[in-house]
């Protein structure tokens, strides 16, 4: 670190994504480590982390509308579902019962996002009239209506109990979802999904970062902080609220379309209120209005079951076999609920806030007050 990295003389450098060389270098190193880790990570961890990457995309979307634009949405599960089924319809194979177009992955991921975005934009005008908690209720209603549609529209969703396969990860004849060989090296299905998810996350995260540091992001923040004041300053409320919903739904659509490629199966009852709650929890635990926080929150909550499984051997009251008070999945739910409460009471800025505090402490070390 040379010169005075905290001294900005131009507005561009102040709002730059990575203002200092140190940050750029560390980000690059970090990305290389994460990408390279796929070579030696075991399969189950690859799958888990790939899921975390995909969930991060969805959480970034929710954070854009809820954290940045301040519009509480409990309807994220609905948009994830729309994305999952749009992806499955565009990318999946047609059978005698199911719709499927068998497109390439580079086409069906954005298409899934677009379908969700269009639906998001269509619902937004209703949402724009509503404030605060009434909006939360509206989006909550959306989840239940969505569940009903998913159950009934069996030419796309396969119907309850039957379900369907998600879109096929196919690019110009190459299959990401099969073990293969790149330049003489054997690569597994899990490694390829991991890299694909990482690439999607990098693209989506940088796009989101660009949205929030630009005019649009500032308008979102103004709407969140006080919408009437924002309107007085010349921000078109309807336009930005619709935009926030559309962008957020696009992210949810992309995440939804990929989320089930990992397990290879989309079930109609996956998109319930608990999924929406889980995404809200990821936003809160990661840190509202923070892209980095979104990724932290998604990763933390996705890995949490695994960590609790590990704790199963240590804590005696856990039901590892058949006796015991709670099963690990139940403990995981309780921990997840308690974490939401705990973070909101003690650290409303989430994991990102904790990280900021640690970083700022060491910035001034050893002269911290």
């Amino acid at each position, binding site marked *: 670190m040379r010169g005075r990295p905290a001294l900005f003389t131009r507005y561009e450098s102040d709002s730059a994504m990575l203002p200092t060389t140190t940050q750029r270098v560390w980000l690059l190193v970090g990305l290389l480590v994460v990408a390279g880790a796929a070579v030696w990570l075991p399969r189950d961890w690859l799958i888990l982390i790939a899921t975390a990457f995909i969930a991060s995309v969805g959480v970034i979307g929710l954070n854009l509308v809820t954290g940045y634009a301040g519009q*509480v949405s409990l309807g994220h599960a609905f948009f994830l579902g729309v994305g999952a089924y749009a992806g499955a319809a565009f990318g999946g194979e047609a059978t005698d019962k199911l719709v499927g177009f068998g497109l390439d992955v580079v086409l069906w991921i954005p298409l899934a996002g677009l379908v969700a975005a269009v639906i998001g934009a269509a619902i937004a005008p209703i949402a724009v009239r509503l404030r605060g*908690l*009434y909006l939360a209720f*509206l989006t909550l209603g*959306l989840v*239940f*209506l969505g569940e009903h549609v998913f159950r009934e529209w069996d030419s796309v969703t396969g119907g309850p109990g039957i379900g369907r396969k998600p879109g096929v990860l196919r690019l110009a004849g190459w299959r990401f979802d099969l073990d293969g060989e790149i330049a003489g090296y054997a690569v597994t299905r899990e490694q390829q999904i991991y890299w694909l998810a990482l690439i999607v996350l990098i693209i989506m995260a940088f796009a989101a970062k660009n949205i929030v540091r630009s005019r649009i992001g500032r308008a979102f923040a103004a709407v969140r902080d006080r919408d*009437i004041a924002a309107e*007085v300053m010349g921000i078109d409320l309807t336009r930005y609220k619709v935009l926030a919903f559309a962008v957020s739904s696009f992210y949810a659509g992309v995440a939804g379309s990929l989320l089930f490629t990992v397990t290879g199966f989309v079930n109609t009852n996956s998109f319930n209120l608990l999924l929406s709650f889980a995404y809200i929890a990821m936003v809160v635990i990661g840190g509202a209005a923070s892209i980095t926080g979104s990724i932290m929150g998604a990763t933390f909550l996705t890995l949490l079951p695994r960590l609790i499984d590990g704790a199963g051997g240590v804590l005696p009251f856990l039901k590892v076999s058949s006796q015991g008070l709670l099963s690990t999945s139940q403990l995981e739910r309780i921990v997840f609920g308690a974490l939401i*409460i705990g973070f909101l009471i003690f650290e409303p800025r989430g994991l990102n806030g904790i990280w900021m505090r640690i970083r700022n402490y060491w910035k001034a070390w050893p002269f911290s007050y």
Partner: protein
Amino acid sequence: MTTFLQATIAGLSLASIYALLALGFVIIYKAMQVVSFAHPAVMLFGAYMVSWFAVDVGVPFVLAVVLGALATALLGYLSERIAIRPMIGKPLFSIAIVTIGLDVVIRTPINNLIGLDIRGVGSPWGFNSWTVGGANLPHRSVAMIVTALVITVFLFLFFRYTRVGLAMRATAMDQEVALAQGINVGRIFALAWMMAGAMAAVAGMFAASDLAGLSASTYIVGIKALPAIVVGGLDSINGAVVGALVVGLAEAYTATYQSSVAPWLGSNFSQVVPYVVLLAVLLIRPYGLFGSAEVERV
């Protein structure tokens, strides 16, 4: 006509469950401007407690309901004290999310306790019914409607004529001024949560007293009470009752007539009708039928 009467009876029964839940929501909302998403879970807890006292412990049914309501009131008190009180003054959105966390924390162990077996609540009226004008009038429906009516009337009298009711209305109007008048606002918050909890226990007991009994999916009934309060308006006691009636009747009529009138809407459409009503009302009146529009300070 008989079909219509039958549907109306079913609708009124549903409405009485929704009304008991919605009144709890509104009392909490009026006291501290908090919407409790944990309320359906509290209801499930109440239903389980009644079932536990009546079936497992074996106390008389009426006593079981009273004990269950008290236990649920205690749960409401503890939730408020531990999770909600530290959040006073934070954004409404954050508090709403805390109640979501609370919902998960309460619901998971209760689901574990309920288990997978069919579990009754030991209700004495069984599944007998009278016949009125050709339609079946189950004893259960009569018990539900009468209880809901009695509790609602009692609440109106309580708010209108008692000192504590007056204190609660004052707190709803302005917390600081209420504090300045010597009202213990914290105690009012606790009381609101306890009243809501007790009513939720009664509602849960009724919801679980049908043929299906108490199961994890009894929770759905509680979730469907949310549209009722939004339809009525979050801060209106009258609205809660009207909203419950609108939602309950709409659901019952749909269950009766939709399969012949609009079969393309799919099976079990009546289960999502409350949300359709919610969307329709919010489209026309963004603050519900009886809710007061927020006055905004810039």
